[in-house]
């Protein structure tokens, strides 16, 4: 009874996973601990829909284990991308909170870390050092996407 809100709620569970994510590269252990306190863990079954295309985006997801496919709504057979452990998705929601641009679905049983947009924005507003490091990594992430898209467009 007195352990009701105990060990299961310790934020440190997400700590080692977060340290390996490129988005949080450069954060010190103390800063990672601050971020880990804001991350929720969710387990998904193979085939389970994580979010739908067009849905209001309110969170960013990190894959701790398993595999996730990003596809057009209901078209899991032709994935836009297949992501494995360490990948980040749903990150556009962090920037504009707009509708999801594609559907995300668990391709295999997986464990995800989820950070709510409100918590992320509060962190950005109140912790300049973490904000600068994550913003830089986000820009690098978007730059890589733009490069990939440009390269794909230039290909004959």
């Amino acid at each position: 009874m007195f352990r009701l809100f105990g060990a299961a709620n310790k934020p440190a569970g997400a700590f080692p996973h977060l340290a390996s994510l490129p988005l949080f590269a450069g954060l010190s252990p103390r800063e990672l601990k601050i971020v880990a306190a804001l991350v929720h863990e969710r387990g998904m079954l193979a085939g389970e829909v994580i979010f739908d295309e067009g849905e209001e985006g309110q969170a960013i997801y990190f894959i701790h284990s398993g595999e996730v496919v990003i596809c057009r709504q209901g078209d899991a057979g032709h994935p836009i991308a297949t992501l494995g452990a360490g990948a980040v998705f749903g990150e556009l929601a962090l920037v504009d909170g707009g509708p999801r641009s594609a559907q995300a679905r668990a391709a295999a049983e997986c464990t995800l870390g989820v950070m709510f947009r409100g918590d992320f924005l509060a962190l950005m507003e109140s912790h300049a050092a973490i904000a600068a490091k994550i913003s830089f990594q986000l820009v690098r992430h978007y730059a890589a996407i733009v490069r990939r898209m440009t390269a794909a467009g230039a290909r004959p």
Partner: protein
Amino acid sequence: MSRPRHAAGPLVWVLVLAATCLLLVVFQKVLWLVVPFLFALIAYYLVLPLQRRLLLRGVSHDAAAVVVSVGIFAVLGLAMAFSMPWFGAQLSALQAGGGRYLEGGVRFLGDTLAWLEANFAFVARAQLGETAMAGLTDHIENFASRHLAGAALTVATWFPSLLLVPFLAFFMLRDGWRFKRFLIRAVPNAFFERTLQLLDQLDRTAKGYFQGLIKLTALDAVCLAAGLWLIGVSSPLLLGIVTAVLAWVPYVGSIAGCLLVVLVAATDHPGSPSVAYAAIALFVAVRLLDDFVFMPATVGRSLHMHPLLTVLMIFAGGAVAGVAGLVLVLPVLGLVAVIGETLGAVLADPRLRARHRSACELLRRQVTRDLPA
């Protein structure tokens, strides 16, 4: 506060209003727990920014809660130790002059009624002054015998439950986030993001309301104290603080605060009723400023209610749960409205329900894979 983008229908709003009234009735029955909880919430949201600062410096939740609580107790203890002589002097002056203030108020009322009778024939014909003064004199003479024992008993009953306030506030600081995670863990994946949004909005509404209430009280107290000091009433700061806190009770508290200020003004300047009239004018001006400028900028911002609905619900709160209902109706309505609107949007979304059913089916298939059909 940002609302869910899905507009709630009339059915949701009927349920929200009904749930608010029902909760007020229930809260009135357990007022000994609700009042300390309310004060603890105010204290919690007041010191929460300090705890957040420590958390963002890498301090753990438990350590931050302890540091903030110990720090607040130390500051309050020092403040009380330093202000005790001043408060003692103010209280003993009030105690010594209590009867004098009451007499001054009665004299002011008598003079005002006499003036009204002299100038308006219909007031003189109704013998308003004589009737009112007789009733008032009877009430004052028998006040102690009728109400003092009951008041002492009420204070004795309430004191232990008010001791709960610091404990509740401390555990809210230390374990509030654990409780939030505990709730979130129980939410199915399909509803997860929307639930995060709901909890965030609840937190923002409550924080906006209670922090707004503190700002509103501080603004009211400063304006009243400055005004009372300008017109020459004694103890302006104490009166300003007391009347601003009394204003937490809509309407009734404001009237009680105004009466208090008029009593003091009429007694301090017995020969010049203009000071008491100036105090009434000041009180009305601060109330108007409060309702049209301060309230929308502080508490109102957190609730986003239509003013007509707010006023009607204050009356409804008073009708179903008395003075407690008047105090509790707005925060309860604000929180129930956020829960109702978001739950309405979540549960009425056929896609989310279908996703939840699909996840349940996936789970059922997984756990029964090796079982005979």
